[in-house]
């Protein structure tokens, strides 16, 4: 799309922050989330999970559980489709183990009973005989020569010869000659980094209500970021036609990437079919931690060369990601995002996808990017510090701009990195004096953003109001943004528009609410669906006036003749046209569907002040500023909310959150008391600056804003800790014990 197709300015609705349409429901307890659905005759399901990190399943005896009064069905792997290949095969293996349990918490059977208490009692009566096998949970250990083999058939053709079978995918990219580049440098720093796995930590556990009959027709209600992927996957796993399963997305209590796949949904469907009753399953928090997607843990080596004037001469990174027991760790995203903020002549990046005895990783906000950025931006900071250069000036000197060949290949279109760096430099935070014991860190971050399959329908009512059906679950206020964009096009008040997240029977396939795509892609489709309806409205007016269609245009919610030659008619408001639409040609609707390709990449720069307590090793974040390019902020309050939420999650990742496995391969911290996400008293206010460099790929210039905000905090905080306490932490999280050890080693 050319820039001159874009609406340049003069927005009436876009850029305002009205109350969200689901606000009342959410503040009164009326909104229905995953666990808030009940059905007549409903049973409760519960899942039997492996206590072992790696074990052969010798025998499962369900007879005692089946004999318990109130138990109506028990399922095991035998109740699912046999012989699935590829991603569906991995998902099924994760949803219900076959020959082996591959991690602590791996599902091996499930029961449905007349109450949740009976279901949980029945779980204890399912007897599973295991042959315990050696296990491995650390990424470096899983790649080592004598590591236990999880599955010797998972490695694909990308993996060079000589690697352990746990290395299942390999990535290699870059351009230029890094050795020549390092030779030109005045200073080369090479360092190794590790990050521990974190969980998305959505407050709402996975929950669903399923009903499936022997006729192969089913209904599924679930909390999900994408009900079409749930429909397609569940249908494949239980062996029914996709279109025979209608999936409705509940209100979603947080996802952050972790609800882009299925876990309990196919299990509830299989139980329902066997019991011939609706079955509800709600995970416990411990099940969420043990068996749903955390992030990858990582091991990384970074080498960067710099001249005395701050010019980066070469950059190289090796990114090893453990993604649990199945292929899919986003190591290529780590590799591709790592150096994206910089215009580099010589760059080389390598990625390894490694399997281990942990739950299958799932996407988490810019998957793969925060860890890589932590490592790279820490080394850049160290170079700046040793060469006595300002970290923003160095980033500006090397910044990617429009036309730069990206470290991952393509040429950047119009991007806003420089604008975020300039805004950071000008921000009062950057020049504010620090208290003794405090340090300041900055970091940049990058994320691709995504388009994805998108289908939106819009229908006008006789009274001149509008209803819109979108297929992307609202994870942060997107219904408000859709209504604002439709109001802009139609010229009717925001309040006259109702946006609904439609079920799978209502629209064609919609990709998941991920990749920061909703405001971009569903927004683009909403605008185009509204334009489609506007075209029809103009046509009705033209017919009424007896003039050609192209002599009518749309402005301020009215059809107008396009000039004196077209005729002298009063503007015809939308409500007047819709009032008689039944007699003038029938209902008026708008529709648009596509897989838009112009998502527009996004950059951000964060500034953080941190204070380290030398006695306890606790780090306090005392001031935080997020500066990010939103392209165009449709609903600025929710854009700020995305910036703040991303920063808060990044702060948790940097300082506290980690999966801790024991020697026995069991997860030791599977509740919120032990897996500590940031609480209100841990954080300061989080200041935001919305930079708007329009994305050429969207009619209003929108760039997705959801993910980039979690990329810079890890390094920004590590850099602040280094400045505050004189210790460089290369292993996340920078929890008090790690900080104390580093302080002690420093002496």
């Amino acid at each position, binding site marked *: 799309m050319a820039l001159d197709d874009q609406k340049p300015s003069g927005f009436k609705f876009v850029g305002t922050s009205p109350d*969200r349409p689901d606000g009342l429901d959410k503040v*009164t307890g009326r909104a229905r989330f995953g666990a808030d659905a009940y059905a007549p005759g409903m049973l409760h399901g519960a899942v039997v999970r492996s206590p072992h990190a790696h074990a052969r399943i010798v025998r499962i005896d369900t007879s005692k559980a089946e004999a318990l009064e109130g138990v109506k069905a028990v399922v095991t792997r035998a109740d699912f489709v046999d012989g699935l290949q590829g991603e569906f095969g991995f998902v099924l293996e994760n949803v219900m183990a076959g020959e082996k349990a591959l991690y602590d918490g791996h599902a091996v059977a499930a029961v449905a009973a007349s109450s949740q208490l009976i279901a949980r009692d029945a779980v204890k009566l399912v007897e599973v005989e295991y042959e315990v096998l050696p296990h491995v949970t650390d990424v470096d250990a899983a790649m080592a020569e004598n590591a236990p083999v999880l599955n010797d058939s998972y490695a694909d053709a990308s993996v060079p010869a000589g690697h352990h079978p746990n290395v299942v995918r390999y990535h290699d990219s870059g351009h230029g000659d890094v050795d020549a580049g390092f030779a030109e440098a005045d200073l080369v720093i090479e360092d190794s980094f590790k990050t521990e796995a974190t969980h998305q930590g959505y*407050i709402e556990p996975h929950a669903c209500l399923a009903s499936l009959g022997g006729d192969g027709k089913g209904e599924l209600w679930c909390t999900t970021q994408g009900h079409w992927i749930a429909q397609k996957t569940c249908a494949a796993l239980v062996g029914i036609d996709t279109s025979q399963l209608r999936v409705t997305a509940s209100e979603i209590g947080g996802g952050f990437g972790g609800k882009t796949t299925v876990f309990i949904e196919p299990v509830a469907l299989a139980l329902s079919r066997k019991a011939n009753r609706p079955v509800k399953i709600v995970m416990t928090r411990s099940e969420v931690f043990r068996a749903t997607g955390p992030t990858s843990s990582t091991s990384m080596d970074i080498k960067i060369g710099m001249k005395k004037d701050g010019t980066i001469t070469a950059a190289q990174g090796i990114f090893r990601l453990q993604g649990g027991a199945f292929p899919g760790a986003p190591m290529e995203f780590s590799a591709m995002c790592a150096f994206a903020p910089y215009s580099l002549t010589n760059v080389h990046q390598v990625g390894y996808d490694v399997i281990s005895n942990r739950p299958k990783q799932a996407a988490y906000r810019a998957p793969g990017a925060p860890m890589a950025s932590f490592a790279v931006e820490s080394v850049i900071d160290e170079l700046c510090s040793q060469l006595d250069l300002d970290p923003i000036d160095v980033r500006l000197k090397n910044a990617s701009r429009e036309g730069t060949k990206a470290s991952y290949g393509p040429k950047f279109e119009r991007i806003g990195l420089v604008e975020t760096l300039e805004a950071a430099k000008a921000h009062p935070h950057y020049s504010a004096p620090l208290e003794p014991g405090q340090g300041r860190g900055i970091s940049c971050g990058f994320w691709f953003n995504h388009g994805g399959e998108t289908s939106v329908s819009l229908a006008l009512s006789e009274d001149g109001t509008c209803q819109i059906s979108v297929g992307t679950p609202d994870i942060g206020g997107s219904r408000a943004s859709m209504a604002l964009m439709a109001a802009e096009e139609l010229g009717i008040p925001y309040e006259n528009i109702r946006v609904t997240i439609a079920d799978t029977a209502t629209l064609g396939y919609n990709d998941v609410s991920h990749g920061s795509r909703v405001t971009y892609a569903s927004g683009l489709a909403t605008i185009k669906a509204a334009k489609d309806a506007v075209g029809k409205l103009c046509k009705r007016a033209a017919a009424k006036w007896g003039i050609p269609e192209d002599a009518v245009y749309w402005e301020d919610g009215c059809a107008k003749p396009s000039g004196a030659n077209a005729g002298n008619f009063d503007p015809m408001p939308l409500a007047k046209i819709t009032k008689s639409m039944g007699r003038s040609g029938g209902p008026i609707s708008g529709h648009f569907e596509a897989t838009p390709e112009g998502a527009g990449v996004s950059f951000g720069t964060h500034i953080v002040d941190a204070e380290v307590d030398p006695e306890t090793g606790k780090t306090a974040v005392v001031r935080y500023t997020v500066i990010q390019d939103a392209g165009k902020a449709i609903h600025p309050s929710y854009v700020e909310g995305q910036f*703040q939420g991303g920063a808060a999650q990044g702060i948790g990742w940097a300082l506290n959150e980690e999966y801790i496995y024991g020697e026995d391969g069991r997860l030791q911290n599977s509740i919120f008391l032990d897996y500590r996400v940031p609480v*209100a008293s*841990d954080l300061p206010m989080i200041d935001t600056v919305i930079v708007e460099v329009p994305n050429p790929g969207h009619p209003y210039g929108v760039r997705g804003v959801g993910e980039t905000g979690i990329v810079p905090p890890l390094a920004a905080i590590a850099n602040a800790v280094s400045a505050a306490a004189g210790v460089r932490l290369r292993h996340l999280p920078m929890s008090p014990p790690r900080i104390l050890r580093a302080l002690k080693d420093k002496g």
Partner: protein
Amino acid sequence: MKKIHVTTTVNNDNVEFLCDPRETLLDVLRDRLNLTGAKEGCGTGDCGACSVTVDGRLVCSCLVLGAEAEGKKIATVEGIAKGEELHPLQHKFIEYAALQCGICTPGILVAAKSLLEKNPDPTETEVRYWLAGNLCRCTGYDKIIRAVMDTAADMREAS
């Protein structure tokens, strides 16, 4: 297991129910009384999504047994608005965009209301520590804290 008969008051309504001795107050509210506003985020008293008050005291309803409700006065998020009239906190949460997904919102509103009843003029630090038992994963708390502080200021002015 033999069920227990309980007579109690929820949001000023007299209610009776039978419950298993193992059922929590949260289970009873949600599964027996159809009050699904309180949410189970953890079941261990760490997230605060199930916050209610029992005889005016803020508790995690996942840590209270249903049987303990006997003779008590329970208040949940469903009782905060009076008919059509929202509580000032509810208005302010919408106005300030102090929620994204909204799963923690019922618990935070119950907790914040309880704070303002005890302390109508809290400092930012006091609000942050009072709400430290209510996890929000979406917002970074910024807009929540502002909404509570501003509601407190409005309510002080109105009284």
